[in-house]
């Protein structure tokens, strides 16, 4: 703990210079040296984490404690090295410097977590496992975890693709054709707002397998927001665009494919984003209740065996997957809607 308070005591007077570095102002030589302070402290925080693993004996038997502390020291060394040679590393160095405050916070958080669980059990065991227990899951239970990831991704991808495709086509048809709208709109109003999970009992005895039932539910959860937003996107296209295209000789197919759909695309992406969120919820519930594979099932299984570290390990993987999927969607959107830059923000 002495290291911790010492580093903190030095940190305070330097915060002004750090602020200057963040603001990107040119710095004189001694100030520049001080500006890399955050990196040094981040490194110190990871040393602290390594030490916190070693200083006290574990309250229980966790085989990965020593390895974890070594890893922490290696990371600390890496941060320090990168900070000192920051200019030489180019973009990587700059990126690291920008993230130094986060690395610092992470190191402190891990130290606190380590001490609060493995060393003094301020948080009750086994409900709050220490970091080394979770690392242990990743090393020892990897095959099962990977199988679960693959199962979840497959189920999610299939259901999402079907839901997005059907939702998009339905949305375009109701937005475009008044007679399709007349028939589909009331059905959509009646069924759409129902949470997809409410269909669970129905789906599981209607469909031949729990797999197809879950695919249906995920597609349903994705399809509703995609349909509604595609529809509103197509319906809100400025009529002047159609007038322009018609006077230039456009046929109806051109009006749909080259006017209505591109104009509606920003709305479609909002729908895809919302659909992704609600389909994650359905995926996990479906896996917890019916499907005998996937991360939701893994969570349920871990909880049944009181394997809380497995649960946390699965939760971390799940959150990485979900945020990865959303990042991917946003990247796709930015690519396709490059013309929107500076027009719309959401």
């Amino acid at each position: 703990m002495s290291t911790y308070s010492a580093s903190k005591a030095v940190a305070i007077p330097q915060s002004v210079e750090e602020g200057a570095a963040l603001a990107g102002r040119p710095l004189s030589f001694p100030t520049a040296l001080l500006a890399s302070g955050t990196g040094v402290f981040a490194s110190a925080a990871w040393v602290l984490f390594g030490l916190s693993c070693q200083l006290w004996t574990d309250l229980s038997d966790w085989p990965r404690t020593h390895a974890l502390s070594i890893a922490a020291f290696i990371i600390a060394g890496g941060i320090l090295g990168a900070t000192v040679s920051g200019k030489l590393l180019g973009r990587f160095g700059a990126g690291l410097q920008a993230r130094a405050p986060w690395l610092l916070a992470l190191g402190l958080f891990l130290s606190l977590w380590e001490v609060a669980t493995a060393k003094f059990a301020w948080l009750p065991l086994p409900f709050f496992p220490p970091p080394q227990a979770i690392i242990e899951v990743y090393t020892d239970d990897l095959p099962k975890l990977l199988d679960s990831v693959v199962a979840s991704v497959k189920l999610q991808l299939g259901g999402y693709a079907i839901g997005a495709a059907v939702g998009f086509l339905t949305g375009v048809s109701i937005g475009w054709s008044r007679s399709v709208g007349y028939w589909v709109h009331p059905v959509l109003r009646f069924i759409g707002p129902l949470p997809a999970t409410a269909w669970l009992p129905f789906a599981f005895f209607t469909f031949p397998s729990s797999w197809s039932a879950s695919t249906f539910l995920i597609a349903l959860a994705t399809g509703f927001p995609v349909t509604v937003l595609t529809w509103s996107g197509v319906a809100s296209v400025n009529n002047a665009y159609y007038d322009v295209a018609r006077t230039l000789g456009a046929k109806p197919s051109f009006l749909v494919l080259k006017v209505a759909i591109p104009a509606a695309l920003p709305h479609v992406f909002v729908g895809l984003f919302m659909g992704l969120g609600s389909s994650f919820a359905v995926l996990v519930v479906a896996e917890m209740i019916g499907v005998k594979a996937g991360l939701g099932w893994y969570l349920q299984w871990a909880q049944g065996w009181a394997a809380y570290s497995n649960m946390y390990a699965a939760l971390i993987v799940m959150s990485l997957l979900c945020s990865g999927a959303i990042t991917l969607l946003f990247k796709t959107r930015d690519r396709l809607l490059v013309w929107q830059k500076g027009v719309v923000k959401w």
Partner: protein
Amino acid sequence: MVAHAFAEPITFPAVGAALEVEHISHAFDIDGSVLPVLDDVNFSVKPGEFIALLGPSGCGKSTLLRLVAGLEPPRSGSLREDGEAISGPFPSRVVVFQDPTLFPWRTVWNNVALGLEAQGILKGQRQRVDDAIELVGLSQFRNAYPHQLSGGMAQRVALARALVNDPKILILDEPLGKLDSLTRITMQGELVALWQRKGFTTLMVTHDVEEALFLANRVIVLSDRPARIKADIAVDRPYPRHRGDPALAELRRHILGLLGLDATW
């Protein structure tokens, strides 16, 4: 830029079409009541003429243009292009609206290519798109998106998008109405130059008397809604015209009088 075209000798390729507007009446249904907007409008346009339609705001000028473009059928009367009845939109009659209405998801080049693409003849005719962009002086902006353009540039792109189709009748619905006055004066000159070079028939709605007189062969003055033709005035002055021309000033006074605005003279 196009401005140098002023100096070129005037050529009349006469690609323009004749237009017959025969006893057109039109009305809108608004909440069950019928609102008449055009009342027996009757005039004919010779190939290559530049007609300005002047009238008080909301009198039905723009509706008349929509009917000529074929975007709507008239309630009664008929429209003919070179003797053939107009029954729907056709790329020989292209409209430039008050708003540029460029497609924001398309670059300048792709916006201008819209007509050829819609007609399925873009392949092998890409040069026409380049030429049209060149014509309005925006070659450097061919890959820009509409939100990166100024109002005047956007309206030039809209003009290029119309001209790339080699229209026989160019329909202009207050195309310069939203531009600042300097850009407007520049573009009036460009418009005259383009019209003289290409020889298309032009039908332009405006509420600016000076603009009408600077550009048009004939100014048709319309009454309040429902629009009726109040006067059909030939502007028999050579091009390029000068804004200070006393003959134009005299016509301007006359027209303002017809519109009931002579007190401001």
